[in-house]
């Protein structure tokens, strides 16, 4: 039986924990709104970019850009894993890492080479032990408040230059797709070679007399890196919104649990206080009777 002072200390400490988690929840809620807004504002660009790509690839099937058709091999995979820089966000990071790990194990058992590029230190920490030898690079975004297109384009330039140096053949990015505050699903999306919906797009009459300035080849050459950058940018924004959503619900749970704990401890505290009082009373009464 813990004594009264211990109980009182414990209640106090749980109360201050609750204050912290409550504050974190509110901060996450505010950040979530911002992150969602950013993700929404980036959507038109990504959508237009993909329709433009579809238009061009549906008319010009003969493009031989390596970014589109690969560099002739598919043995070496570059896996880009985007996670958060900070913890305390529930299963956010581990769900991405879990999916990435199963993908990595599949690739390894099929005899492929893998290289891993991590964005965000939490994923790196989790992968270090098992896949330490495959980690080739890390992108640190911890100093940033919001991810900008510039950041995404730096990452994509890095990846593309590695591709042209033949360091890998296929690149895939893992991130969390934001669905709602309580649900974020880990997702994988292939960056290089760019997946196109060849054949699925009906060739419209308007595209057949489309004019290209300069020629299609050069436009595609100019567009492809942008498509990759846009994909990475979208992934980072989705990840940002998911992180805040996950943190918000994790902290909401923590706050609720702390409240329950406080209730329990308070009951225990009151009981033991009552027991102590009863004890004292019994002692006094039996003392008086003995007289």
């Amino acid at each position, binding site marked *: 039986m813990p004594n009264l002072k211990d109980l009182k200390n414990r209640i106090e400490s749980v109360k201050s924990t609750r204050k912290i988690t409550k504050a974190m929840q509110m901060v996450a809620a505010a950040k979530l709104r911002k992150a969602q807004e950013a993700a929404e504002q*980036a959507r038109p660009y990504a959508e237009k970019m993909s329709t433009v790509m579809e238009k061009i690839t549906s008319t010009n099937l003969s493009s031989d850009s390596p970014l589109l058709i690969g560099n002739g091999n598919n043995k070496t995979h570059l896996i880009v894993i985007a996670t958060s820089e900070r913890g305390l966000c529930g299963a956010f990071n581990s769900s991405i890492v879990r999916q990435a790990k199963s993908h990595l194990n599949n690739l390894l058992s099929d005899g492929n080479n893998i290289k891993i590029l991590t964005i965000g230190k939490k994923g790196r920490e989790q992968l270090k032990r098992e896949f330490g030898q495959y980690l080739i690079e890390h992108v640190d975004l911890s100093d940033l408040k919001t991810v900008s297109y510039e950041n995404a384009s730096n990452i994509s330039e890095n990846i593309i230059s590695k591709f042209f140096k033949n360091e890998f053949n296929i690149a895939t990015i893992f991130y969390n797709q934001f669905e709602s505050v309580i649900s974020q699903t880990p997702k994988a999306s292939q960056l290089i070679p760019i997946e196109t919906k060849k054949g699925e797009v009906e060739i419209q009459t308007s595209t057949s007399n489309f004019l290209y300035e300069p020629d299609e080849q050069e436009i595609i050459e100019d567009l492809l890196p942008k498509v990759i950058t846009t994909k990475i940018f979208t992934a980072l924004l989705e990840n940002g919104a998911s992180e805040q959503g996950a943190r918000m619900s994790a902290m909401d749970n923590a706050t609720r649990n702390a409240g329950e704990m406080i209730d329990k401890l308070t009951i225990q505290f009151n009981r033991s206080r009552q027991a102590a009082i009863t004890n004292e009373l019994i002692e006094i009464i039996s003392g008086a009777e003995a007289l």
Partner: protein
Amino acid sequence: MSDELFNFELITPSKVLISGSVNSVSIQGVEGDMTIFANHSPIATALRPGYLKVVINNKSENYFVTGGFVQIIGDEVVILAEKATLESEVSLEMIDQTINKTKNLMENASELQKCVLAKKLNDLTIIKSQL
């Protein structure tokens, strides 16, 4: 000059800057400048770094773009720009930054890309000297 309006969108990765009916749009494409009015024939062209003039309600607005892509289909004109700012907000610093970035990109680009980037660099230097 026709009075007909058409739908125009200027989109950057972080924001939709313009979306609505406009009178005309003047752009600086890689193969030459052009002004787009309503009922333009379908075309897709890359932009070189430079200015674009958008006329909305007979009032013109000038934007500076560091490059991008225009697509015209029917009554829809879409410009996808990596970066677009109002002309009045263009600074020497910003252009220097873009120039440096382009130079970095050139180091490990393919031959065809190098060609494109060299053109871009040239345009940027001209713009810088005009500021």
